């Protein structure tokens, strides 16, 4: 079995026939942008390029700016797409579907046994691209042999064997390096079945899993796993869950294993290197490298090389070698931006921002890890000096250049950026500016986890949160905004209007008053839940022990 689409099987002989047909349709182009969103179509397109000596281009995003740069990189690039509404500014080939019922009949005996095309290990299979600091995507070569070597070790880590073919259900796009390796190549090279769909909502992911026979593997990311766990749906048993693109919290990993009743493996890698390490997060924090890959620390930076890695590569995360072939992951290097598995850099985003007509100066900054939100995604914000632009026009211009997930939230128009005398812009100064620019009426949202401890309320099955916890959240929000430079606060007044339950989403708002106090309000779906006043704690001690000695 090669693949499933909506539960219907697609066999290997069918795949090979489709590959031959699409290879023929691709004609003379030597570079193909494979923009198919259906995973089966993508795989056919990729294999068609392999068999006809064409190179697949796999950029992370298809904004008009990236497309323009791709045509400079490969002037003859042809776009293969299965989207009838595709508007990419490239010569396009619509994925040619097989011709009706005739194609669905199994061909006579000798065609069925058509040999699987052999591809030279050294053949250039694809270019993947990362966001460079100069604003131009940087290409990375992927040769066929190294791709296969990489996913073969991956299959060993996953405990897969050709004798027990699995079905792969993936929420990730096939163009992204992780999706490319884990949802396409691993299946293709190991005799497993891939699923054509890319399910999005939790209910769709559940349906996709239930639609394929076991053994079945879910290939996903922390964003979708969090959503699945938060959805209260009954999860069907799976045989393995793969997770990558960002570290998955231990308790989420444990809950995933428990609710799917199988093991969860995390994969670590990068666009440049492909996957290079794996771990089971419920068993320990250490990652185990692929056997021939090695890490070389150079100050704060770590280089990876060896094995399937095409060339020594500077990793974008802070890695600590903790043993032979093992390391710990400490976080990203400051410039790297990773939002829901899509990677960019502050330098690249800043370059795009400053290239927009009307922008005099602009800079992106990281927002703190979103401690509230079902998807746990932290965004980037931006401060911009652009007296003649408004937000709508600026965002539209940005949309043409960068992936939507990187659009700044918030986008703040300021008079000037706090550059120092050498022109550098310290991140802390930029964030402080952003805080001030958002104005006195700061608002944030807070989600009370469903499993948060609560008191039994007056009514059955209606536990309530103690009000003091809400006060704690407000004080914390204020202190965070003060950035550790402010004083401490005491509760001047507090009124609790409605009970709060675990699992609810609240809005916390506060406004600083001219007399130094802070008015706060907490609401749920626009309805007030609590409000009150914070008063600065006096710095001199009060009471008997506080009086100055005479």
């Amino acid at each position, binding site marked *: 079995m090669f693949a499933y689409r909506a539960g219907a099987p697609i066999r290997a002989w069918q795949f090979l026939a489709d590959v031959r047909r699409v290879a023929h349709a691709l004609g003379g182009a030597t570079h193909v942008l494979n923009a198919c969103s259906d995973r089966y179509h993508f795989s056919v397109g990729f294999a068609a390029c392999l068999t006809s000596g064409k190179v697949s281009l796999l950029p992370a995003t298809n904004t008009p700016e990236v497309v323009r740069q791709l045509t400079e990189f490969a002037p003859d690039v042809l776009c293969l797409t299965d989207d009838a509404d595709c508007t990419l500014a490239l010569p396009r080939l619509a994925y040619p579907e097989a011709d009706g019922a005739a194609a669905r009949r199994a061909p006579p005996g000798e065609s069925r046994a058509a040999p699987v095309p052999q591809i030279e290990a050294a053949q250039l299979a694809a270019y993947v691209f990362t966001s460079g600091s100069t604003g131009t995507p940087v290409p990375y070569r992927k040769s066929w042999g190294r791709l296969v070597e990489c996913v073969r070790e991956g299959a060993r880590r996953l405990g897969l064997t050709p004798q027990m073919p699995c079905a792969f259900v993936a929420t990730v796009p096939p163009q992204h390096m992780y999706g490319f390796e884990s949802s396409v190549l691993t299946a293709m090279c190991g005799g497993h079945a891939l699923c054509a769909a890319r*399910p*999005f*909502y*939790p*209910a*769709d992911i559940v*349906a996709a899993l239930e639609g394929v026979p076991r053994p079945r593997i879910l290939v996903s990311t922390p*964003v*979708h796993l969090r*959503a699945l766990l*938060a*959805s*209260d*749906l009954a999860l069907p048993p799976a045989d393995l869950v793969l997770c990558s693109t960002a570290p998955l919290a231990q308790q989420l990993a444990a809950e995933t294993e428990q609710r799917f009743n199988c093991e969860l493996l995390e994969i670590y890698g990068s666009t440049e290197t492909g996957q290079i390490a794996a771990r089971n997060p419920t068993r320990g924090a250490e990652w185990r490298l692929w056997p021939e890959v090695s890490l070389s620390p150079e100050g704060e930076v770590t280089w990876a090389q060896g094995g399937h890695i095409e060339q020594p590569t500077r990793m974008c995360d802070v890695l600590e070698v903790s043993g032979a072939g093992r390391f710990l992951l400490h976080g990203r290097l400051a410039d790297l931006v990773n*939002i*829901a598995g899509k990677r960019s850099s502050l330098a690249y985003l800043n370059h795009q921002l400053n290239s927009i007509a009307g922008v005099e100066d602009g800079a992106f900054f990281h927002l703190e890890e*979103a401690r*509230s*939100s*079902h*998807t746990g*995604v932290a965004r980037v914000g931006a401060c911009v000096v652009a007296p003649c632009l408004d937000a709508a026009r600026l*965002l539209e211009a940005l949309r043409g250049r960068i992936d*939507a*997930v990187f*659009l700044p*939230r*918030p986008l703040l128009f300021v008079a000037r950026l706090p550059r120092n005398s050498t022109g550098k812009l310290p991140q802390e100064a930029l964030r402080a500016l952003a805080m001030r620019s*958002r104005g006195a009426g700061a*608002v*944030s*949202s807070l*989600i009370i986890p469903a499993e948060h401890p609560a008191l039994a309320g007056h009514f059955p099955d209606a536990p309530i949160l103690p009000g003091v916890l809400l006060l704690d959240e407000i004080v914390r929000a204020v202190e965070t905004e003060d950035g550790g430079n402010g004083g401490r606060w005491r509760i001047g007044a507090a009124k609790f209007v409605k009970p709060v339950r675990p*699992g609810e*989403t*609240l*809005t916390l708002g506060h406004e600083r008053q001219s007399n130094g106090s802070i008015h706060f309000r907490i*609401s*749920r*779906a*626009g309805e007030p839940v609590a409000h009150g006043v914070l008063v600065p704690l006096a710095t001199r001690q009060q009471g008997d022990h506080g009086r100055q000695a005479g």
Partner: protein
Amino acid sequence: MSDKAPLRQPEPPANVTALTAEVAGLIVEALNLDRAAADIDPDQPLYGEGLGLDSIDILEIALVVSKQYGVQLRADSEDNERIFGSLRQLVEYIIAHRTK
């Protein structure tokens, strides 16, 4: 005399307005948007243009909507783009499918 189950009555207008305000409030809170719920034009696009939400936001909204109203969104029943075409369309979808 009909043996069929009674048709689900259309929601009276006042309830729709209240529900629209409630859903707008949920969206603003869940996504930490820099605007008031009352400022969301019920007919402006939510996804892409208009409110400018992306797919992560859609997932986030789908979760709060499922928790609040028991609606499980599916991509194959109706497009993201239609359900999230506007606040009004989202509210209509919730009315038609809510279980809480």
